[in-house]
């Protein structure tokens, strides 16, 4: 069936046709248009330097057309190459127009031939490279490398200044002990907020803020101050969110709150 569908000009010999058909089936096996061109060029059975670029362009375009008729999707770069080869083909067939700018069709064709020859040369070089004796396969390194033992002689050093500074620091530690927050006696606003969220549901009527303070947080003045401040900040936040209503009779009077209804 593929035979019948293959309507190339008469001059293509049968073995070449078979090769071209194999190409169609194996389109995924090519690494790009240049690879395909290189494979196609082999059907010309000539030195790459003597390749007929015109014929090659026709072969390629035939391939693309064939692939299309078989509804084989070709990657974009194959189509770009097809367009370029179609352009090249027309340039090669038509005489150059007077005043034509840019490179001649022959230059472009020669460049394509060069690219193919170079790719083939790299393939051959790769094959020769891989055919070389290889380490770990044909020749071998020392099986028991004796590691260099690294003897590190460490000497320590300090200056008199280091010594004096160190001493000065120890002796005056208390003088400039860095300010560190005493975390044990700090009640954070986050803590208070969490706590109030749990409690507020039960507060239908006005209650003083102080009554919400957690047990044990009114023992020392510092803990009391910290927890009161945290809870005050927390209820302000809640008031802002519309969760509670606050009131204070006068300056310094107890702050009262209740759940906001609705």
């Amino acid at each position, binding site marked *: 069936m593929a035979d019948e569908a293959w309507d190339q000009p008469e001059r293509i010999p049968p073995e070449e046709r078979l090769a071209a058909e194999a190409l169609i089936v194996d389109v995924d096996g090519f*690494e*790009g*248009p*240049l*690879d395909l*061109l290189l494979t196609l060029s082999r059907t010309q059975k000539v030195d790459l330097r003597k390749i007929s670029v015109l014929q090659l362009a026709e072969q390629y375009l035939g391939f693309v057309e064939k692939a299309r008729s078989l509804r084989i999707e070709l990657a974009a*770069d194959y189509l770009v190459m097809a367009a370029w080869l179609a352009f090249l083909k027309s340039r090669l067939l038509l005489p150059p127009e007077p005043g034509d700018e*840019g*490179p*001649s069709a022959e*230059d*472009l064709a*020669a*460049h394509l031939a*060069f*690219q193919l*020859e*170079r*790719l083939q*040369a*790299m*393939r*051959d*070089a*790769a094959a*020769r*490279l*891989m055919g*070389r*004796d*290889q*380490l*770990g*396969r*044909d*020749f*071998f*390194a*020392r*099986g028991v*490398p*004796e590691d*260099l033992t690294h003897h590190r002689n460490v000497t320590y050093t300090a200056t008199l200044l280091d010594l004096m500074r160190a001493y000065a620091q120890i002796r005056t530690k208390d003088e400039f002990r860095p300010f560190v927050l005493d975390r044990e006696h700090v009640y954070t606003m986050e803590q208070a907020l969490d706590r109030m969220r749990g409690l507020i549901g039960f507060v239908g009527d006005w209650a003083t803020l102080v009554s919400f303070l957690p047990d044990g947080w009114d023992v020392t003045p510092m803990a009391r101050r910290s927890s009161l401040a945290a809870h005050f900040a927390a209820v302000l936040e809640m008031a802002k969110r519309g969760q509670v209503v606050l009131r204070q009779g006068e300056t310094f009077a107890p702050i009262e709150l209740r759940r906001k209804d609705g």
Partner: protein
Amino acid sequence: MVEDSEESLFDAPPMGEQERMVEAILFASAEPVKLAELQARMPHGADPAEALVYLKKRYEGRGVNLVKVGDAYAFRTAADLGFLMRRETVEVRKLSRAAIETLAIVAYHQPVTRAEIEEIRGVAVSRGTIDQLMELEWIRLGRRRMTPGRPVTFVVTEQFLDHFGLESARDLPGLKELRAAGLLDSRPLPGQGAASDEEDEALVGQSELFED
């Protein structure tokens, strides 16, 4: 050869001893050892370069040979005895065709940019290919090309040379012929800039490569 011998307070050991030292150091290492490293490890005034000449001769035709890899030296078993070493053979991950071709292109065209590799192969180079070759430590980044965009270049490594038993990248098989045939030229599509400058650069690059 020993330029600083007059500065030396101690006599360098006799050449026979130096040869033994180089032998011991190279034997002990699986990796090629650089000349500078030999110099550093041997007693003051020693001339490892000369000792290496004698040592190389001594191991000629032996089961183990002294080989040069870049500017380093190593002992390697003779390739004709590989058949005895089946046990030591390390299974090398099969490289894809794309990886093998890319490797060859880097070796023969170095320093080469990714765009150049792609131009030669006529297809995009997948990230995995470069990664795989870098992971094998067969290629590494070379210096940036001084062209717009300052693209990075790739070059082959000393491990590559070691793996394929090459003394330098200049000893790649068929390099001269390929160069003579103009197949290592970077020849842009006609009408897209000059090629001669770049060609020069590629040649300079190859010889500069293993300096450091």
